[in-house]
């Protein structure tokens, strides 16, 4: 019997709830915003200054940078020049590193990280300039029944193939919101596309164990699952993350006729997207979100 591993919703990963400031209601994700959540104590400021700031509920770099220079002067008692130097110190602690584009390019080729995952459909590969881009988010949209889920299942097979056959030789995380994933179909695709490679039962079993399917049925659960993905990616050597489909959960929960829902919906989509983008860039994996378009 061939089975792909099923996993129902796991336990919730606790978000780092420290630093909750009344000023803004921001959830601190496990993945993004690591630099901005940095505690001011670790930046190199004096203990006395940190204590003074924490009395005004300014604990992280984010809280500090949201203040205007006048507010900082009032809170710290420093002169304008001192405030300016302090701002530079804190900024240096959480600003991103500079890279030249040439540096990025040479780093990628040195690590032998492929820039694209070929879809083995030559016309599509040509249009996409090589295939699905690694390290970024790809959206697949289309009317119902045009083959999006099938495409995603096929990409799962391709990702598990060894590199000399054009694959990424890694695991796949498949977040399924519609229960559309069929393990039987996965095996069928593998056998018919690559009959010579998948001629032994063991190879089929191996491929199916590499696809980790998570069934999430609400927006909240999807977001939690994405937040906890980082550890999965590292431990299981995941190379592709697929979400099938983001549009269905959103449509179920947010009725676009109602006024307030639009904002909530966008907020959810944007949060999910930024988390996925962070994961994609950090681990250089292609992430795919599937959408339906109902006219």
């Amino acid at each position, binding site marked *: 019997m061939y089975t792909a591993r099923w996993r129902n919703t796991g336990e919730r990963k606790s978000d780092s709830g420290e630093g909750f400031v009344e*000023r*803004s*209601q*921001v959830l601190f994700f496990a993945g*993004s*915003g690591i*630099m*901005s959540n940095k505690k001011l104590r670790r930046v190199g400021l004096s203990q006395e200054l940190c204590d003074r700031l924490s009395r005004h509920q300014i604990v992280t*770099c*984010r809280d500090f*940078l*949201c203040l*205007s220079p006048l507010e900082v*002067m*009032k809170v710290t*008692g*420093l*002169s*304008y*020049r*001192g405030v300016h130097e302090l701002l*530079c110190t*804190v*900024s*240096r*602690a*959480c*600003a*991103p*590193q*500079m*890279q*030249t*584009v*040439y540096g*990025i*390019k040479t780093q*990628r080729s040195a690590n032998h990280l492929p*820039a694209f995952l070929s879809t083995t459909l030559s016309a599509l590969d040509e249009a996409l*300039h*090589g295939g699905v881009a690694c390290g*970024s*988010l790809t*959206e697949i*949209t289309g009317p119902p029944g045009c083959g999006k889920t099938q495409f995603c299942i096929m990409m799962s097979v391709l990702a598990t193939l060894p590199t000399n056959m054009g694959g990424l030789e890694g695991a796949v995380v498949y977040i399924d919101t519609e229960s559309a994933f069929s393990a039987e179909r996965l095996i069928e695709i593998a056998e018919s596309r690559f009959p010579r490679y998948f001629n032994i039962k063991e190879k089929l079993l191996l491929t199916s164990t590499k696809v980790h399917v998570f069934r999430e049925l609400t927006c909240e659960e999807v977001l939690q699952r994405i937040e906890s993905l980082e550890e999965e990616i590292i431990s299981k050597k995941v190379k592709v993350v697929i979400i099938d489909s983001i*549009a269905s959960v959103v449509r179920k929960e947010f009725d676009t006729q109602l006024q307030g829902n*639009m*904002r909530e*919906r*966008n907020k959810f*989509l*944007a*949060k999910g997207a*930024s988390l996925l*983008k*962070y994961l*994609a*860039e950090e681990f250089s994996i292609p992430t795919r979100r599937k*959408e339906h*378009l109902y006219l």
Partner: protein
Amino acid sequence: MQRDLVSFPLSPAVRVKLVSAGFQSAEELLEAKPSELSKEVGISKEEALETLQIVRRKCLTNKPRNDSTSDTSCRKCTALDLLEQEHTQGFIVTFCSALDNILGGGVPLMKTTEICGAPGVGKTQLCMQLAVDVQIPECFGGVAGEAVFIDTEGSFMVERVVDLATACIQHLQLIAGTHMDEEHEKALEDFTLENILSHIYYFRCHDYTELLAQVYLLPDLLSDHSKVRLVIVDGIAFPFRHDLDDLSLRTRLLNGLAQQMISLANHHRLAQVGNIVQITKPERMHSTVSNHTSGI
């Protein structure tokens, strides 16, 4: 100098002590020595020295009001001066002739340009093209500068920039072929793929805190890399849209950012370190959803 003490950027604690000691205007303060001041007011000697330095610096810059020729911090000039400046300033071509015509030659230096539009229309592509075009040598009509690319959305693709740079090199080689000039040949020797890519400085900001931090550090960066002529912020409003619920804070931070960038352009123009164009790219700031679902 009858200027009131309250208008100086002193620390609040020191100011309170000075006022309660009876000092009202800058003139009274300038007569004192640091050690005398510290004893009288009750502040440390270092604080007294710092205070006097701040006051002295401000007073000195205010003195030569009539002597405008040597005053480089003075921002007044006539419209004729500005006209001459605008005629001589360079443009960054976009390689789209229709767009260049509308803009009057290309993206102007010393100005802030905003690019907005629906998702998928080509804003990031245009920004990447400009990051390559700013490096075109002067003999081909470019500004021979470097570029800073601050990315908040992650849509920057290295492979695409390689394509753009390669195409630009080929285009210039064709032009050089028709001119058959030594100057052009020599300029092309330096205009290689490696050089182009090395002169685009890339920063990836994942949220608005990193963006704010990066903009605070821009002045130092620009003084270190004096050849930068272009600063691109790809998606200036994007990190503020989903992370901040407090609308007034969001507005304040965004406006503060815009002000900082404008002052950056002006300041570097005065110091004549470099002429800078900034392209900010706010996508729609209000939260209406565009027609397709990928409106992020």
